[in-house]
């Protein structure tokens, strides 16, 4: 195609004009970009710098080490154990199948765990650690660490986890920790920022729960620079937290172990307290459970097994179980009547085997009757009719007042959850709660620890300690926190006539030391260790028949309370065996073994038992499953 030179020149000029226009427009646009850049980078720089810092600078919490729990001798009951675990992070992980196959080869990772890891990893953030396996053995842990290059994204980590080395023995006292739940958070007034850490362990029951604020400690903080995935690049500033307070219990771990072993096989409870200080030396409850199971995440099957067990392993029977005290209550009735001046220790009451009151016949446990009995005789024989008479003379208000004076109906200030206050009924209580007037029959039932009266094993032990000392002994479970001795209460006298107390103690002495006493078979024959006590058999239904032929849950509760040594009381205890049958046959032998262990500080020598029984006792003690250091014994540190 031909084109004239003028055309060409004209078109070239036109192109140049338009090129200039284009260049001008482009320059203008670049100028605008430059201005925008200046506006953002100079005028708004401060603002954006702040936003950039907000992106990268984060404050992380450092969980403090939880306070330890010791027994009175300093033995560790709850500790923080180093645990080894391996985690995987998505952002660093290579081919997951290869990694998991390698782990299967190295440490035998199960197919279930592999599937779980796959599933959790799918939902996890890129740098969120997904636990592959927790609580590895050191061998498995080091095998993984040594093969790190073949396991991209897998990192071995060391953590702290609560451990209860004595397992079942302290389950009901220490309780256990578990990951904080939404439900826990909803019940807190002030939420510690630590609770925002996923799966942060907090006390779920027992002392762990009640002393949570002391045990937890306070969080430290660390200011870090982190990348977009939350991976920490470097640490800028670190402020260590305060570890939790160490808590020392008044419990003696050997005695506790012996109590648990001795009660094993029964649904039972026993409490032993030091009458001088009120220190609870042992508070057993069987069956128990291993609190470590809860820390590690108990399986549904295991948990259901605990829930459905008719022996109720989960609650602490020593403070949560409320039982009719039966004849162990008779000291209360006796002292109420003596204090009211309606009877003297030597005055006798005739027991024909029953008494008729208000058209109803109230039986003595011995249908044939006891004949004429005085105070000591009534305790020795556990004569019911004597107390029916005293109840009518003293009235329920005096009895209830004496019960309260001796510690019944009281929920002591113990750091255990779900404390039962039992029930010390009076006229007002019945009016308020039953909508009926108190009748004399109620007093008769109450006088022998039946009817409305309910007590916990802890209350019975306190009652016995108060009877033994005449002082208002108050139980103490925590000996010290962070080395600071906790106060001892209860040195003031009970304001009960000492002569009358002495008469009651004499009656209790005869229960176990008089050949006609109900618990003579369970006497301690070692001088200076002699035990005074009282049997109790509390009915769980109205008609008494032979205990052997009724189902377990309908049998009577067997109770025994005791203190020793008789002349200079040091220990008081209570034993309650649910549906155990008779107090003298089931509870008293247990109480004797416990009392002897408490006094010896170790498995009692056979010489403390009556000669004739030593053969069977030897067998019984030999068959107990005790820990090594319980068998060895040791010095008990006193308060």
């Amino acid at each position: 195609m031909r084109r004239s030179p003028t055309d060409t020149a004209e078109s070239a000029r036109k192109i140049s004009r338009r090129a200039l226009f284009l260049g001008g427009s482009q320059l203008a646009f670049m100028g605008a970009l430059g201005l925008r850049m200046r506006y953002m980078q100079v005028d708004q720089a401060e603002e954006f710098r702040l936003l950039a810092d907000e992106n990268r600078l984060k404050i992380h919490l450092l969980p403090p080490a939880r306070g330890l729990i010791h027994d009175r001798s300093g033995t560790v009951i709850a500790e923080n154990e180093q645990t080894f675990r391996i985690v995987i992070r998505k952002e660093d992980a290579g081919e997951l199948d290869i990694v998991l196959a390698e782990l299967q080869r190295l440490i035998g990772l199960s197919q279930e765990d592999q599937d779980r890891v796959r599933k959790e990893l799918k939902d996890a953030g890129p740098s969120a650690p997904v636990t592959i396996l927790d609580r590895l053995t050191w061998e498995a842990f080091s095998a993984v660490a040594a093969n790190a290059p073949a396991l991209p994204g897998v990192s071995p980590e060391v953590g702290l986890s609560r451990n209860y080395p004595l397992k079942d023995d302290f389950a009901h006292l220490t309780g256990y920790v578990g990951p904080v739940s939404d439900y826990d958070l909803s019940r807190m007034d002030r939420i510690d920022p630590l609770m925002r850490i996923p799966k942060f362990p907090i006390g779920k029951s027992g002392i762990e729960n009640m002393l949570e604020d002391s045990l937890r400690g306070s969080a430290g903080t660390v200011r870090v620079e982190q990348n977009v995935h939350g991976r920490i690049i470097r640490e800028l500033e670190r402020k260590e937290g305060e570890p939790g307070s160490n808590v020392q219990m008044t419990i003696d771990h050997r005695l506790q172990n012996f109590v648990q072993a001795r009660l094993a096989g029964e649904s039972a409870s026993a409490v032993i307290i030091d009458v001088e200080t009120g220190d609870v030396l042992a508070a057993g409850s069987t069956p128990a459970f291993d609190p470590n199971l809860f820390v590690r995440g108990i399986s549904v099957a295991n948990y259901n097994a605990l829930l459905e067990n008719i022996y109720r392993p989960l609650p602490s029977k020593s403070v949560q179980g409320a039982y009719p005290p039966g004849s162990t209550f008779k000291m209360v009735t006796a002292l109420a009547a003596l204090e009211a001046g309606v009877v003297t220790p030597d005055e006798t009451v005739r027991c024909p085997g029953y008494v008729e009151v208000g058209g109803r016949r109230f039986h003595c446990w011995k249908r044939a009757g006891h004949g004429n009995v005085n105070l000591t005789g009534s305790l020795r024989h556990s004569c019911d009719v004597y107390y029916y008479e005293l109840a009518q003379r003293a009235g329920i208000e005096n009895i209830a007042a004496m019960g309260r004076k001796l510690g019944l109906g009281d929920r002591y200030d113990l750091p255990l959850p779900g404390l039962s206050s039992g029930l010390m009924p009076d006229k007002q209580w019945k009016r308020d709660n039953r909508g009926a007037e108190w009748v004399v029959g109620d007093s008769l039932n109450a006088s022998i620890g039946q009817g409305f009266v309910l007590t916990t094993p802890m209350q019975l032990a306190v009652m016995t300690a108060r009877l033994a000392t005449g002082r208002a002994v108050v139980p103490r479970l925590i000996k010290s926190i962070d080395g600071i001795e906790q106060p001892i209460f209860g040195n003031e006298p009970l304001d009960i006539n000492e002569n009358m107390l002495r008469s009651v103690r004499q009656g209790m002495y005869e229960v176990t030391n008089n050949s006609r006493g109900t618990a003579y078979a369970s006497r301690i024959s070692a001088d200076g260790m002699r035990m005074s006590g009282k049997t109790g058999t509390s009915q769980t239904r109205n008609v008494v028949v032979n205990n052997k032929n009724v189902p377990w849950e309908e049998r009577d509760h067997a109770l025994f309370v005791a203190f020793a040594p008789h002349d200079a009381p040091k220990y008081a205890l209570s034993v309650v065996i649910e549906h155990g049958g008779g107090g003298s046959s089931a509870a008293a032998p247990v109480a004797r073994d416990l009392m002897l262990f408490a006094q010896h500080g170790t498995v009692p020598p056979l010489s403390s038992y009556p000669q004739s029984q030593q053969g069977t006792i030897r067998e019984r003690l030999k068959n107990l499953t005790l820990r090594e250091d319980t068998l060895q014994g040791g010095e008990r540190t006193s308060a």
Partner: protein
Amino acid sequence: MSYLEQNLKTVPTGISKVLYINWPLVVLLTAVASVGFIMLYSNAGGSFTPWAEPQMKRFGVGMVLMLIIAMVPIWFWRTVAGVGYALSLVLLLVVEFFGDVGMGAQRWIDLGFMRLQPSELMKVTLVMFLAWYYDWLDVKKVSHPLWVAIPVIMILLPTALVLKQPDLGTALLLVFGGAIVMFAAGVSWWYFGAVAAAGAGLIAAVFQSRGQSWQLLNNYQYRRIDTFLDPSSDPLDSGYHITQAKIALGSGGWTGRGFMQGTQSQLNFLPEKHTDFIFTTLAEEFGFLGGISLLLLYAGVIGFCLISAMNNKDRFGALVTLGIAATFFLFFAVNMSMVMGLAPVVGVPLPMVSYGGSAMLVLMVAFGIVQSAHVHRPRRKS
């Protein structure tokens, strides 16, 4: 018109051509690419792998390619312009139907040694084809409706294919790049006015069609527009990109946070920091001074191209130079507007700086043509 027709004028021949290469432009392009190497090195946390080293190799290959192309007479390129356009169109159709699936869109052909994006190729061949067209067309017919309709169809054909991929950024570049060649060729102002009015109408239609059966854009494109209009509305998803980019850019200040000290880029808060958002790394680490320096380098590239075009009496050479300069301008103007929050995120890389093979090589080829036009421009016999 052919070389022989310009018999009053002369062009350099043989090895002496090397002296006529637009060397300032070569230096400027090398400087721009070097900014890219530095930022890629920084973005990799102070490492030549995985980005800086391959990018340098590609630049080396591209430089050789550019110089070879520069040595080939410009009329050869004019001759193959039509073939190039047709080939690009065919390749676009091929990726449309047989392309590999990557990044959610079918965009490349695997050549074994590299992945070729026909849409990148089209950016250059379209400009060449239009320059050829206006070189061929009688100057008097330039604004005739029929002769305007033909290039418009030539532009819209590849644009439609690219939009279908879907690649809004490239489509915009094709339309604007083509339009600028038409404008430079002397098409009447009225057409551009009319198109601008129609464009406004189209934008209205785009917004109207949303959620209707005749919806014009994909949902993700609407979301990008939403995000552009209000980045905070979606701070975790698509708005995250632009918010983080603005933070990085803004926090740079006058002189920046220092080489490899940009927290936004080094800690990975910046998305796509080695590709589309690489400018924010520069702005964060070298501040306003760093950013404005790159802008000046770009302005220099554009400036040398414009001077070369204005001094070129060869119509094809002048138009192709202007068209390529305009495409280059559109690349960085759209990319910078995007990272500064002035335009929606459309996925346009920063030319010669962003990591990526196709874009870099195609641009070097394009500048090879610019150089060829420069070297072979008609000169008066001295």
